[in-house]
């Protein structure tokens, strides 16, 4: 977590039992041998070091001066999508923090000047120079909304701000999703505004790569800007933005707005009867839980206590620490929305919700290790195909993009789609591929 050092986690790292629970879904949830792995990194590279526990051991070895940086060690640390599946599987049983340790290990690498990796530098430079991750001029950030009749939240008071995010704003193949989102929400009567070209990057890539300084700088700018708008809530359709706004921003500065994902808002609108679906989809689909919408969307409650021992050696935290175990991620909202769509049948994959298998795109993996990201997407596509679904639906641009590549690479018959596209179609708008 922000500002922590490996020293802060020495006890946790020492207490890893090397039990390998971090490699599987929580054991109760193993349903077949084929889909019994939950960690993309060790699934591909196999050495124990690639598991969540393995990275904790590397952190301990670094702290104790047993090892020094090497290219191979950095590969192990960064060939990981920071999806947090290891964290959930570990915390099914333990009171340890594998994901926080992995983040701290990366942050240590950055502080020590051995990271970011060369492939990550253009992304971070782009954030510094252009306030987006795609190396695009700032002015282009609002181009996606040019033809929309939507309020500029800087100029007019709005109830809800739509935070489109870099990818939906700047990637031509994704811009339609942002537009559709605005249209759908407006059709349900949501008083919506956007920031257009003044929207800044959420900072998520800097955080996951370990550049805490850049992340905090971005977060501060964003919180200040968003606080000044006086909006009641900020809605995102990018799971990456959602995860960082909701769970990491509170660590930087207090915000005066609520952060919701578009699937939560859609579920609310469905429940209120404000969306009326008339067009049957007549499809069988499967749903991929994005990591930052699911298990990594629990708001982190900063804990500044001490470890205390009772009963001689029972380790407890004083004051009590609330562990994020993935229990309260956003799992139901997208499923409620899908269930409301006529003619749509949802058939679930084996690895879902808090133990969903990652798409492989996150944590800087896609830019630095594209073959790893693609292999991970292929694995997920294979699982999606095994359900018999025609369509792989998700709610994150990074997932959608990487899974689409996986589909193409596999020559799969699957189509990929964003949940908002299905909603729009069922409302009578747009066409599905």
């Amino acid at each position, binding site marked *: 977590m922000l500002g922590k050092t490996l020293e802060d986690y*020495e*006890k946790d790292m*020492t*207490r*890893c*039992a*090397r*039990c*390998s629970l971090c490699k*599987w879904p*929580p*054991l*109760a*949830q*193993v*349903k*077949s*041998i084929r889909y*019994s792995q939950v960690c993309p990194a060790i699934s591909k*590279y*196999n*050495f*124990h*070091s690639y598991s969540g526990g*393995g990275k904790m*051991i*590397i952190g*301990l*070895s*670094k702290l104790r001066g*047993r*090892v*020094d940086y*090497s290219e*191979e*060690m950095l590969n*192990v640390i960064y060939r990981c999508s920071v999806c947090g599946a290891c964290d959930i599987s570990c*915390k*099914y*049983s*333990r*009171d340890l923090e594998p994901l926080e340790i992995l983040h701290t290990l990366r942050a240590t690498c950055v502080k020590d000047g051995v990271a970011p990796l060369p492939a990550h530098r253009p992304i971070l430079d782009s954030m510094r120079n252009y306030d987006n991750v795609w190396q695009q001029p700032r002015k282009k950030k609002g181009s996606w909304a040019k033809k929309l009749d939507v309020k500029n939240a800087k100029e007019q008071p709005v109830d809800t701000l739509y935070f489109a995010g870099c990818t939906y704003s700047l990637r031509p193949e994704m811009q339609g999703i942002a537009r559709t989102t605005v249209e759908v929400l407006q059709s349900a009567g949501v008083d919506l505004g956007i920031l257009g070209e003044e929207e800044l990057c959420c900072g998520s890539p800097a955080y996951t790569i370990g550049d805490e300084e850049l992340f905090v700088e971005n977060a501060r700018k964003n919180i200040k800007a968003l606080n000044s708008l006086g909006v009641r809530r900020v809605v995102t359709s990018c799971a990456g933005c959602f995860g960082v706004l909701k769970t990491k921003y509170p660590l930087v500065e207090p915000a005066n707005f609520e952060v919701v994902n578009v699937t939560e808002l859609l579920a609310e609108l469905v429940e209120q009867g404000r969306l009326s679906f008339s067009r049957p989809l007549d499809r069988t689909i499967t749903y991929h839980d994005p990591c930052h919408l699911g298990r990594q969307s629990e708001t982190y409650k900063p804990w500044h206590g001490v470890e205390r*021992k*009772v*009963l*001689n*050696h*029972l*380790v*407890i*935290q004083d004051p*009590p*620490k609330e*562990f994020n*175990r*993935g*229990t309260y991620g956003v799992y139901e909202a997208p499923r409620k929305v899908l269930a409301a769509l006529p003619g749509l049948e949802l058939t679930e994959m084996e690895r879902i*919700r*808090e*133990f969903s298998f990652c798409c492989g795109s996150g944590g800087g993996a896609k830019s630095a290790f594209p073959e790893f990201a693609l292999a991970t997407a292929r694995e997920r596509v294979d699982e999606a195909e095994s359900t018999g679904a025609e369509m792989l639906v998700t709610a994150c641009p990074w997932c959608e993009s990487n899974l689409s590549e996986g589909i193409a690479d596999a020559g799969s018959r699957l189509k990929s789609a964003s949940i908002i596209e299905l909603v729009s179609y069922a409302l009578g708008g747009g066409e599905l591929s």
Partner: protein
Amino acid sequence: MLSDDVFLELQGIVGADNATREPAILDTYAFQYIAELIVGDNYMGRPCAVVMPGGTEEVQAIVRLCNRESIPYKAISTGWGAYGGSPAPGMLQLDLRRMNRILQIDADNMYAVVEPYVVGATLQAEAMGLGLNCHIAGSGANTSLLASATSVMGQGATGVFTGFSNRNLLGFEWVMPDGELLRVGCLQDSGEWFTGDGPGPSLRGVIRGFAGAFGGFGVFTKCAVKLYPWYGPRALELTGVSPDYEATVPENHAVYLISFRGWQDMKDFGNMVGEAEIAFALIHTPAAPAVVGVTRSNKEFHDLWKSGLFEHMKYSLEVVLTAGNAEEFTYQRDVLEDVIKWTGGKVALCSITGPRYYMDLAVALSRLVRQAGIKKTLRGTPALLTYMATEWRNGRTPALFAKALYLGLIKQCLQARCVFRPGGSFWTSMGGLTSWDCCIENAIEGERIKRGWIEKGILMDDGAEQGWGMLYESGAYAHCEEVAFYDQSDPVCVEGSMGYVTDTVKATIDKHLAMSLNATGDPFHAWYSPHVMNYHHHVAGIKEEFDPANLSEASTYINRGITETLIKLIEEGGGENLDFKDILTLADNEEAPAGTDAGRPAE
């Protein structure tokens, strides 16, 4: 130090991506559970390299290379425990993770052929789909079935129905310490895997004996394990979100938690239920880990535990019934309820629906009150009621606890939570295979010893109540081990915990309580062998015959020279407190280091 040439050769065998000498990666193999008790550090000796073979031929090539170059080696599968490593640096580690296939499930003959990295969770999931089930060791569903069957002990909660791992070992494929391949049992003769005995050589006793060689006797690359009927759904129906999962208890299945008045009733109950052949699982879980298992954090556990009431649930057993039809289930349930009645048991929790939950709970609580005493009850009840109210407010009724208990017993998925969460680590002792009656004596003695080490501040205070025990093969024998929790990051624990093991081992000898379940490695041989016909001569002889160069790393198996030195020390009265750290020193001073044949006795 591995030469570049040899490393290149290893890469040539397994592929460049599957061999490494990177220190950061090697350290993730040196770091091991209980290493601190063995070498005084969280890291065992750092291996010279790690290789990940993809099949038997590659394993053979690696072992032959090790023999040619005199490199000590050891294979691990899921690799959980210091016995997978070596106290000394420089060993070649074989990580068998890539050998992870279920090669065959023969539903008609009820066995499965697996590679080393297949774990209980995966085989069980596949077997259930065919109406079968496998035995999962008490270490949990995350551990290798092959390792459990060929190389260590491997007892688990369903043993009363499914036997246990080493008894379920059928045919196996073994890369012997010199690299030659041997297929054992009927496999050698017929190519089929259905029995570990002939025609063909039956070497089950040789390769594993009582406790197993813990990786110190070549490499096992495939094995067959026996499967058992599963009278349940093809997959359990799960509800909940981590860390709270529950399974719907299927029709004609039931789970019970039964408390007794004392040890004698518990003994009688176990023996009668075993003999009646009605149970799918029958296990005694000590109260502290049981409460850890149903709570989400140590804080939650402590809030509940400090009520002081659960400490008194020491006389309890968990039972699962699984029947193929209603008639059989009625028979099982009637027999069980008769035995409960005859032995004065009270049902604290039962999955059979209806108002009985609350009645059972009330009865169990009233017994708890009697056992804990009125003062403790008055003190503890508010905490207990607060907990129960919170749980019920969150929808966790006794019905859900029964479902969670059923899930935990069937899938063996909560072990790591129960033993690692409290203090960070645990160690276990005693637990020899013996009669259920003797197991209870183990538990009583274990509790006495453990209380002393709790009072010294070395172990976590879990009330000292002990005895993780269960029955096998309809109660023909049983085991009850003495689990103790400690903090591996605390020097006080690291320094002292092995003393607890030493005391319990001595007690098993002094009180004739059967050999400890972890009776392997030179210190254990030195303590036990003089009392058991000097068996170490036989074990060492086998090792030396098959591995004359002593390259299959045997620090947790046997080294004749070290064992005999320790026996002498113990006989002379100076060695009673020796532990593994002393063994390392002794090994350094031995004239016959690993990798030579000088460990052989004088002709």
